[in-house]
């Protein structure tokens, strides 16, 4: 192969001998999900996935792939298959079926009004 790249010239004739490559499933290893904690005091956040043969290499590759420029104080990697998840398609799971205002701050908006209404009663009896 006549190339402008000296490295390619050096790789000849081995390079031109390889005419077909078929990668079998899992040739590039299984996947890990990566989480980055960007600042002390912040949550670790999911940033993506990568392929790695084992957890140690997953951490090394995660550092290269997800923390080579951005701020990071801590990295987590988790085998994708270890994660249990609910699908975004089932997000209605998280919509309350009944009125749950009793567990929300917004359920307590009228406290002050009640106090104003009965203010007279709170005056000291003289």
């Amino acid at each position, binding site marked *: *192969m006549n*190339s*402008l*790249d*000296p*490295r*390619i010239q050096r*790789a000849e004739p*081995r*390079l*031109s001998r*390889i*005419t*077909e*490559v*078929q*990668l*079998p*499933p*899992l*040739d*590039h*290893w*299984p*996947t890990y*999900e990566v989480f980055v904690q960007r600042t002390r005091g912040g949550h670790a956040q*999911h*940033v*993506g*996935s*990568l*392929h790695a*043969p*084992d957890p140690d*290499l997953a951490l090394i590759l995660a550092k*290269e*792939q997800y923390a*080579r*420029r951005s701020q990071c104080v801590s990295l987590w990697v988790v085998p*994708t*298959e270890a*994660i249990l*998840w609910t*699908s*975004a*398609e089932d997000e209605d799971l998280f919509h309350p079926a009944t009125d749950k205002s009793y567990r929300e701050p917004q359920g307590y908006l009228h406290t002050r009004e009640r106090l104003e209404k009965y203010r007279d009663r709170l005056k000291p009896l003289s």
Partner: protein
Amino acid sequence: MYGNLVVRPDDIENWGKKVHEEDPEKLAEFEARIDRGEKIEPHDWMPFEYRRQLIRLIEQHAHSEIIGALPEGTWITRAPNFRRKLALMAKVQDEVGHAQLLYSAAETLGKSREAMINDLLSGKSKYSNIFNYPAKTWADTAIIAWLVDAGAIINQTTNSKGSYGPYVRALERICWEESFHLKYGYDSVVHLATGTPRQRATLQDALNRWWRPLMHFFGPPDQQSIHTEKLVRWKVKLATNDEMRQQFLDMYVPKIWELGLTIPDPFLHKDPDTGKWIYTDPDWEEFWRVINGNGPCNKERLAVRRFAEENGRWVRDALRPKNAHYVTPLA
């Protein structure tokens, strides 16, 4: 670095039947979600054609990143000084990193990374046409880092407003990293443009050779059809190829002229009435010839990828865990 999704005429003919077989109720829900500006996540119901076109788009984008690292990578050993060498290595590493992010995003749609790479190596999947041209001199790397990355940023910023969550998230990160490439490229170009007459001549020569591939970069004028409309409706395609080309010319022609360089198209000018750039037809026959495998570097690019996969195989085999089984990445 990537040009726009090219909707090929044969795709349009072979496409469509499945769309009409989709459950109309689910399709309406899906389209309403997109209309509301919400993102689609990997396990959501999605039309067959949405999935197919997105896999094709993201996969082509990933291949473009990994092949795009090659013409620039050629110059790492011959960079003019140590700082430029470090910067070029950082840029090439970014491009390969972008490929990894994009392969992961495409994998969430159900196609394994191995299957994508097999399709790249067999020539079944395409990548951005511009990387089938050679980087003959150091000035070529400056033009690539400035103008090819500028085009890629326009395209990627546009695509980052798309509807598929994992792709959008990958693009946000990629665009952030590309901003370094653009600054580095511009700095390299300005260095040559303000240098000796010989440096200026080398830069002009590089621009002359890259101008046509740059005009091809966003793809041929779109075929108007019901199917491109569908891709627009589903926020897979967010701007026409011509819209992005015009944006590129608007942003970069004045900057190129400012450097005292000549653009090798005497007909290029902005129509004062329409505000649109008018240019010589960049020979779309050549575009199709190159995309179909007959450009100056197509064979070399794929040969190098095959060589890399084949030579790394023993490392991957030695490290592969026993009893591993494949799970689709989550996001």
